[in-house]
């Protein structure tokens, strides 16, 4: 007897349709899975056997062969458990074949027959819809996510429940509309006292999507400030939210009970993270932090501590907004358009810029520390701000402006920048021409400062870039001691 079930395998951020064929023959009872399964899929044998037994269904005492087609695509992960089990049940006539044909299936089996969620449900659901399958059998936890893709999810908690449903003896529970975001509130700028300059830089960074480098001694609130950036970014549009959700689903990074990512994501990998963890990679290439931060913020705390290859690998996404991973088997492209925020101390010991402590670093150590950031990477930071140590009376000062007020200005500027970005006025152009000579700006620096000046003018609601906008933009240029080894 032969039966088929349909499921989907993840290839990068996309899903490919996989046919799961189960063939039962007379002979010595055996169970084989073919079609390039990896170790995880091979182990499905044990889960499927136990799951079927636990569901009080019958394990056919036959020679069972399961083929995963197309056979040349490597299959990874535990999502094949459910379709394999269903194909075997259909082949042994425990569930009707024609009913199974109308469904795609995705899920991992527990030994007791429960069905567990797997990453990438939304992507699999989209592929199912594209293949003309209207229903997806999946774990109850995956159902709200699958619903976003426009298929009808059939949430099943147990293999027995899936069998009963396919025999028409069980009505699936309706899938609840995903409730709006109910997680912890985003960190608010209200908590930041003083730090006028850094706050202003955050606002400009959010409005114009400029990469921001915060320098200063430890304990001055650089990280605290950076964490408040997602709260003032314009919210994601529906398309953007789906795109981000897809990425986070594939990476298994969706928070429980929140199928749709509504806020710009915030990722802060530690500096010990490997290069593939940051830009993506691995044997079955998986998105890295840069892709998980797509349409959001990537914070590299202590930029100088990151290994140089990791930083260099970020140059491509910073340039193109995507990461390309080349393998012998093909090339994958992950989107990675993020706002990069870096923080760094001004010297390895961290005391530089702090009036209370004397820096003990030799000039050579400071130069080595700063040289780690290549010119090319440094060139990607439109805004560079040094955050000096705050005085005690500032820390005790009044609470700052809340994020909601800043977000409003950012939104207004964002609209202006998209509709009609203010042109650079004559006086402002003259000013930057003068600055090129006296401050030694490069052509790239010129372009960067012009971009920032346009954002500043848009924030001010000005019809064109005036000299004061250009002057302020110039104040965020990378300082000369970073630009060239002293």
């Amino acid at each position, binding site marked *: 007897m032969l039966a088929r079930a349909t499921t989907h395998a993840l290839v990068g951020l996309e899903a490919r349709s996989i046919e799961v064929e189960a063939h039962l023959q007379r002979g010595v009872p055996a169970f084989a899975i073919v079609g390039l399964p990896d170790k995880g899929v091979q182990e499905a044998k044990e889960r499927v056997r136990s799951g079927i037994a636990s569901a009080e269904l019958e394990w056919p005492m036959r020679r069972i062969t399961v083929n995963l087609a197309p056979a040349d695509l490597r299959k990874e992960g535990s999502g094949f458990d459910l379709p394999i089990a269903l194909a075997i049940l259909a082949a042994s006539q425990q569930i009707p074949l024609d009913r199974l044909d109308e469904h795609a299936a995705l899920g991992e089996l527990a030994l007791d027959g429960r069905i567990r969620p797997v990453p990438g449900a939304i992507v699999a659901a989209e592929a199912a819809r594209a293949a003309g399958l209207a229903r997806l059998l999946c774990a109850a936890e995956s159902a709200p996510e699958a619903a976003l893709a426009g298929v009808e999810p059939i949430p099943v908690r147990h293999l027995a429940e899936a069998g009963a449903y396919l025999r028409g003896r069980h009505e699936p529970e309706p899938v609840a509309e995903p409730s709006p975001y109910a997680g912890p509130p985003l960190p608010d700028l209200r908590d930041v006292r*003083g*730090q*006028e*300059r850094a*706050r*202003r830089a955050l606002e400009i960074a959010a409005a114009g999507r400029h990469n921001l480098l915060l*320098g*200063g001694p430890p304990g001055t609130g650089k990280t605290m400030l950076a964490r408040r950036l997602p709260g003032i970014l314009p919210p994601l549009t529906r398309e953007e939210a789906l795109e981000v959700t897809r990425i986070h689903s594939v990476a298994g990074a969706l928070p429980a009970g929140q199928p749709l990512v509504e806020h710009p994501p915030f990722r802060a990998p530690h500096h010990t993270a490997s290069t593939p963890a940051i830009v993506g990679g691995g044997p079955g290439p998986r998105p890295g932090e840069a892709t998980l931060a797509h349409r959001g913020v990537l914070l590299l705390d202590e930029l100088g501590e990151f290994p140089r290859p990791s930083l260099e690998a970020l140059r491509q996404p910073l340039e193109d907004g995507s990461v390309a991973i080349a393998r012998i088997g093909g090339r994958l492209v992950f989107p990675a358009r993020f706002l990069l925020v870096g923080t760094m101390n*001004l010297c390895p010991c961290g005391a*530089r*810029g702090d009036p209370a402590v004397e820096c003990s670093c*030799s*000039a050579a150590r400071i*130069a080595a520390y700063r040289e780690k950031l290549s010119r090319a990477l440094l060139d990607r930071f439109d805004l560079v*701000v*040094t*955050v*000096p140590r*705050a*005085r005690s009376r*500032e820390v005790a000062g009044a609470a700052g402006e809340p994020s909601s007020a800043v977000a409003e200005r950012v939104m207004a500027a964002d609209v202006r920048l998209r509709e009609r970005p203010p042109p650079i006025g004559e006086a402002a152009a003259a*000013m930057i021409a*003068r*600055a090129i000579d*006296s*401050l030694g700006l490069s052509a790239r620096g010129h372009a960067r400062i012009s971009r920032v000046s346009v954002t*500043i003018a848009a924030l*001010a609601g000005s019809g064109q870039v005036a*000299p*004061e*906008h250009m*002057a*302020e933009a*110039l*104040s*965020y240029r990378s*300082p000369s*001691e970073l630009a060239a*080894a*002293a």
Partner: protein
Amino acid sequence: MTYGVLRRPDAAFPPLLAQLHDPPRRLHARGDPVGVLEQPAVAVVGARSCSAYGAQVARTLSRDLAAAGLVVVSGLARGVDAEAHRGALDAGGTTVAVLGCGIDRDYPARHAELARRIVAGGGLVVSEYEPGIEPAPWRFPARNRVIAGLALATVVVEARERSGALITADFALELGREVFAVPGEITSALSAGTNRLIRQGAAPLLGAEDVLAALGLEEAPAPRAEVTDAAAGVLAVLADGPRGQDELVRATGQATSAVAAALVELELAGLAAEADGVHRATRLPERAA
């Protein structure tokens, strides 16, 4: 690239240098030495690991001295020396770097490009040592005597209690040349040497005009920069001492954006400078007003 060698009995050998009690027999030069060493020169020297204050003073002072037509002499070392050369180059002036090794050595290596700019700008890299001689610590005091010998006056910008720059000052005093010291905070170890020099009778240096007056030269009329009211307000606060930008926002009551713009305006006008997030005025307030 031009190279030149000046020999002692020759007329081209700088007469000021010949006044040393053990003048070098030869002076090797990268660049064309003809005429350069006859111009009035001032040495600007100081600590390698200088503070932001020291670096700023060295640069501004050398710029003003070079703008007034003086040759700035220093030792191409890190810190004050390099800033002195850069300041002179900023003003399009001539500057001379005296090495403690052969002139074909790029020492320190990181200043190879600076040395190239010095020569390209009409200045010189000179040494009493034959090409090929490696740098060695015991050659630096001798190098300092050449720096002092070439200059009519020596300015020590920042120096610790035991500093090579003080050796240069000693040679200058032996030659009966003018020695200036830039006053610093009495609590700063980096200013201990210069403050002691002042106590011992060196003239405290408050600006380039002090050097020009001592040498009997007219001060080049300082271009009086017109600044906006916002910038003037920021400058008035900076006159009380270096400030971070957040402090300036609170002190002036102006918007963050306006203060940022004002500081850039002041920097373009050469009236203020920034290091590690701290802004400072580069001139005395009454001259800048």
